[in-house]
């Protein structure tokens, strides 16, 4: 019941019902779905049966691999310095692109990237200096294609 008191506090403070809807989904809808859903042998299918109705989608393995590679980022910033040195013109700073890509979901408004933003020249100078071996120009290309297909947020992988 503690969580429901939290919802009441938030409702009184902000007037928002967001906390209540989350509570209902996690406390009732998910539990109900888990009780009612048909049991499957494949754990991925089972997971999708539970959470698919909430809008969870399966990601492409290649894109998931890219996000996993991006998550090795040390945030050292060498890619940004090298990119500036060779005169690259990426739509997003390469370091910011990698950090965003490692998060699986990107909010374009926060990145300041226009949906029609062009890809960088893909000279791969950034990847050459990356100590974590991330293919940064592929991350940039992926972000550019996602930005072209979706105006606000998009899944990386």
């Amino acid at each position, binding site marked *: 019941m503690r969580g429901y008191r939290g919802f009441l506090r938030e409702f009184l403070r902000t007037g928002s019902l967001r906390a209540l809807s989350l509570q209902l989904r996690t406390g009732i809808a998910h539990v109900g779905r888990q009780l009612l859903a048909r049991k499957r042998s494949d754990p991925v299918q089972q997971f999708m049966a539970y959470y698919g109705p909430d809008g969870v989608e399966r990601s492409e393995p290649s894109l998931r691999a890219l996000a996993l590679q991006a998550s090795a980022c040390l*945030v*050292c910033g060498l890619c*940004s310095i090298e990119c500036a040195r060779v005169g690259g013109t990426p739509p997003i700073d390469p370091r910011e692109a990698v950090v965003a890509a490692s998060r699986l979901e990107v909010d374009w408004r926060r990145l300041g990237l226009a949906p029609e933003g062009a890809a960088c020249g893909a000279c791969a100078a950034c990847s050459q200096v990356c100590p974590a071996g991330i293919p940064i120009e592929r991350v940039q290309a992926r972000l550019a294609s996602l930005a072209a297909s979706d105006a606000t947020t998009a899944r990386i992988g």
Partner: protein
Amino acid sequence: MSVAVIGAGLAGAAAALTLREAGLEVVQLSAGPGATALVSGTLDVAGASPGIATLPWRDPLRGHALLPRERFALHRRGAATHPYAQLFGGADEAERSEREIEAELLRLAAWLAPEGLALAGSLAANRLLPSVPGTLRVADYALGPVAGADVLQAAELGVVDLPALEGWDARALARTLAHELEALGLRQLPLSVVRPALPEALLCERSPARLAAALDGAAAQAALAAAVRGLGAEGRVLLFPPVLGIAASAPLLAALEAASGSRVGEALAFPPHALNGFRLQRALDAALCRAGVSCIRGRVRSVLASNPERLTLVFAEGSRQRIEADAVVLATGRFVGGGLEAGPDAVHEPLLSLPLYDGDGRRIDGIPAHRSARKGYGNEQPLFSAGLRTDRRLRPLAAHGRPRHARLFAAGDLLGGFDPGRERTGLGVALLSGIHAGRAAFETLRAPQQSFASAAGGMP
């Protein structure tokens, strides 16, 4: 005779250049840029020496007041496993080793000079250099662009304000710096925030990397020099963010000093904008190229050391791609560089599974990293001093206490017994142990009667 050096940081570069200058064929292998590319620009050879009871490193005032020479002497005597004790640990060697250190820093300066990167300092005096957040760091040697910002030699400090620049807040820096000077018991410097009248394109640049790249151009350099003309004063130091050119920092610094009539320096900066580390790594890479070292990009997976005369470097698992070498210098660094790996199960050295020891001298390879961690913020972590043990010729020791291979050497952070983060002397150990490992490898390969000095033309 060919030698393979694994690792692209300062230790690997110093070993490779030393061997190449002695006339050997050298192959340098690296999986990426060295961790040297992440440094702030200081090269504090003597270090702050934690763990040595006689050195008051926790007391910043007294620690800073010690001359590098005294700090180095305490180092050498204090901790038997410290790489300096291995390199310079002999009795009554103090003066000789100091001269040797100064000579080796001159060699580093000569390697960096063709790329326009200067090295300033001496073992006779400290510098006190401000960082981007406004904290102070003590250093005996420092790279040219940051060396000019020494607050001990300034009568007045003008912090250059660039309001659009990410991560740079001149007012916050000045405030923190005032507190730091007070905490150190140093006399207060008159601090001011000055704003150069720059063209809009430079003044509005948000990204420090892009501003630094723009300031490589002649027109932007001229504009900046014109903008600082009225900002100088007698005894004033102008403190810039680290943006004074990526490749062409030396001529820009000279032009700014001539235009303003003040000394000019950059603040020390850390990732994600460690511009001076980037410059240092680039200058080292260029020095290797110029010297004729063949640099190969690729991750070495293992080193086979069953033949007493030769070692074999294997690239991928099961791959046929191999390199044979008469001697190998390991300069692979620690956890950031990849020389040590802390997997889910255990800490280990991936190339030869060499035994590892932590700062307390306990064997730690094969046990999980969290078992070596000590609870509590600020406690010394023995894992941060983890690394190999070597003999005095820097040959890694196997578990039985004898060298693993007669022609295998190690240098840099891979050597255990010191914590580079606390001591702030990672580059000092990297340079000195790199040169030492290079010499030891050369002397092992050559006939005993031919010393290093005769081959390298009178090198000390």
